[in-house]
C-alpha cells in the first residue's frame, strides 16, 4: 500500500510540474491542483498508514500505543484541502478575468507590460 502511494505521489508531482510548463493558463491551474493533491497524499503517507486501529487511546491502555492510528495527518490534509479549495476558486475567477481582458489563454501573451523598461 505504501509503495502504491509513493508511486502515486511521484505521479502527481511530475504531472503537476509538467502541466505547469505548458503555455495554457488552464493547464497551469490544473498543474497547481495536481501538485497540491500530491502534497496532501504525501502528508497522508508520511503520517504512517495504520489500518483498522483507533486513533486516540486512553493513557491507561498504554500497551496499545504501538499500533494506534495517527489522527493528525487527516486534520492537516483537511485544512490544506479547504485552503486549496478557496485558492482554486479565486484562481479560476482570476483566469476568467484575465481571459476576458486579454482575450487569450496563452501565457506568452501576458508579457506585454514587461517590454517597456
Amino acid at each position, binding site marked *: 500500500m505504501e509503495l502504491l502511494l509513493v508511486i502515486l505521489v511521484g505521479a502527481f508531482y511530475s504531472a503537476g510540474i509538467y502541466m*505547469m510548463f505548458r503555455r495554457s*493558463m488552464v493547464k*497551469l491551474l490544473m498543474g*497547481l491542483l495536481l*501538485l*497540491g493533491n*500530491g*502534497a*496532501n497524499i*504525501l*502528508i497522508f*503517507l*508520511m*503520517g*504512517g498508514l495504520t489500518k483498522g486501529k483507533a486513533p486516540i487511546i486512553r493513557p491507561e491502555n498504554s500497551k496499545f500505543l504501538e499500533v494506534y492510528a*495517527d489522527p*493528525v*495527518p487527516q486534520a*492537516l490534509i483537511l*485544512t*490544506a484541502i479547504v*485552503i486549496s479549495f*478557496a*485558492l482554486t476558486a*479565486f*484562481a479560476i475567477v*482570476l*483566469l476568467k*478575468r*484575465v481571459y476576458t*481582458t*486579454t482575450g487569450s489563454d496563452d*501565457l506568452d501573451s*501576458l*508579457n*506585454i*507590460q*514587461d517590454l*517597456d*523598461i
Partner: protein
Amino acid sequence: MTTNFILAPILMHMFTAIVLLFFWQKVLIQKIISIVGNSIAFLLCLRLFEMTLSQGYLTLQLGGWQAPFGITFISDTLSAIMVLLTALVSLAVGIYSTASLNVSRIKYGYFFIFHFLIMGLLGAFLTGDIFNMYVWFEVVIISSFILMTVGGKKMQMEGAIKYVTMNMLASVIFLTAIAVLYGITGTLNIADIANKISLVENKGLVTVTSLLFFVGFGIKSAVFPLYFWLPSAYHTPPSAIAAIFGGLLTKMGIYAMLRVFTVIFQPDYFTLTLFSIIAVLTLITGALGTINKRSIRRILSYLIICHIGYLIAGLGLNTELAFVALVFYLIHDVIVKSNVFMISGVILKMRETVDITRLGSLLKDYPKFSFVVALVFFSLIGIPPLSGFWPKILLFQESFKQENYVLLAGLIVASFVTLFVIVRIWSEAFWKISPKPITEEIDHFAPFSLSGKIALIAPIVGLAAVSLFIGLNANSFIKLSEKAAYEMKRPEIYINNVLGSKE
C-alpha cells in the same frame, strides 16, 4: 510567561475587519474605522513589544493543550520586533490609503482585506507551530491576491497571474516540506521538532528538508533564482498596496527562514555556503536589474530583491554579530521600503507618471516634500547617521572577519549600485527641469483637500522620522538587535520556554 495578551493584536485586526463588513458601501465610515482600528492595534503591539522586552518570552498554549499537542503562540524578541514593525507600517499605510486610493477600490472592500492581511502577518510572526504558520501564510497570500487584483486593470491582471502562480507553488513546496518534517519527527510544534530533529539519523534527509523550506520561503522572499515574479508584479497595484507588499510580505519569508534555520535546523557548512552564494547572486542580479529601468516603481521592485540579499548574507554568515546586523537591517528595510513606495505614489499623483525621463522640477515645485524624500533616500543608501548605515557596516565587518571576500564584494557592489540608482532618480526626477510644462490636468495632488494632503504626506514624514530616530539612536537599536541575535543563537531558550511551560 503565559499570557492571553499575545492574541490581542491579531484579534484587534480581525475585529476591525469584521466591523468594516457592516459598512460595505460607506467609504468615509470605513476610513474612520480603519484608522481607529489600526491605531488601537498599534498600541496593543507596542504593549506586546514592551512586555516581551521586560518579561522575556511570552507563550500561550491555545485551548489549554500542553505544548507538543496544542498550538503554541510565542513572542520572543524577534517576533516582537516584527509585530511592532507590522503595526507601524500598517498604521502608516492605512492612513496613506485613505487619500491615495480611489473610491471604487475602497468600495470593493480594500480596507476589509487589508486588515485580514495584517492579521495574517501578525499571526505568522507569533505562532510557534509550523503548520499553523502555513495557515497564516495562506491567510496572507489569499488577502494579497485580492489586494493585487482589486480594481482589475489589464496590467494588474497580468502581474497577478505571475504572483498567484508563484505563491501557490511556494505554498505547495512549504506544505511538502512540512509533510516530510512530520514524517521524520512526528510533531508540528517548532520547539518539539527542534528537540527531535537532532535524534534523526538520516542527516541527508534533514538537509534536503531544510532546503525544501528554503525554496518555499525563498520564492516568497524573492531570492536569486526565484525572484522573477516580483518585478513583474509589484509595480502593478496601487502604491499603498505596493507599500505593504514591498515592506512586509517579502520580509515574512525572511522571518520564516530565520525561524526555521535558527530553531529547527542548525545549518551545516554546505547550507551556509549555499546561503552565501545565493546572497551574492541576489545582491548582484537585483542591483543590475535596477540599472536600465526608467520607472521608479520598477527600480524599487528590483531594489527590494537586491536588499533581500543583505538579509540572506546575514543568514549565511550565521554568527551572532551577523544576526545583529540582520535584525537591524530588517528593522531599517521594512520602514524604508514601505516609505519609498508611498513616495512613488505621491510622485505619481503630482506628475501622473513615475517614468524618470518624463519627471522633473520636483525640487523646485515641492521643496519641503523633496527634503523628506532626500532623507528617506539617504537612509535607503545607508549614509550615516541614517538607519541604513549601521547594519551595512556590521555586515561588511563580519564578512571581512570571516574572510568571505566574495560576499564582501557583493555587499559593497550592491551598496554602490543602490547609491547610483537613487542618485539617478534624484537628479532626473527632482533636479532636472521638467521636460514638459506642468499643467493643471497633470497635477492630481493640488486638487486634494488639506486633510487629504495631510493623509498623503503625514505617513511619509512619520516613517522618515522613524528612520532618522533609528539612525540617531543606533546604540539602543543595536542593543535590541543584540538581544534578538542572542536568542536566535540559543534555540534552547526558545525550546525551554515552549516545552518547559508545564511547571
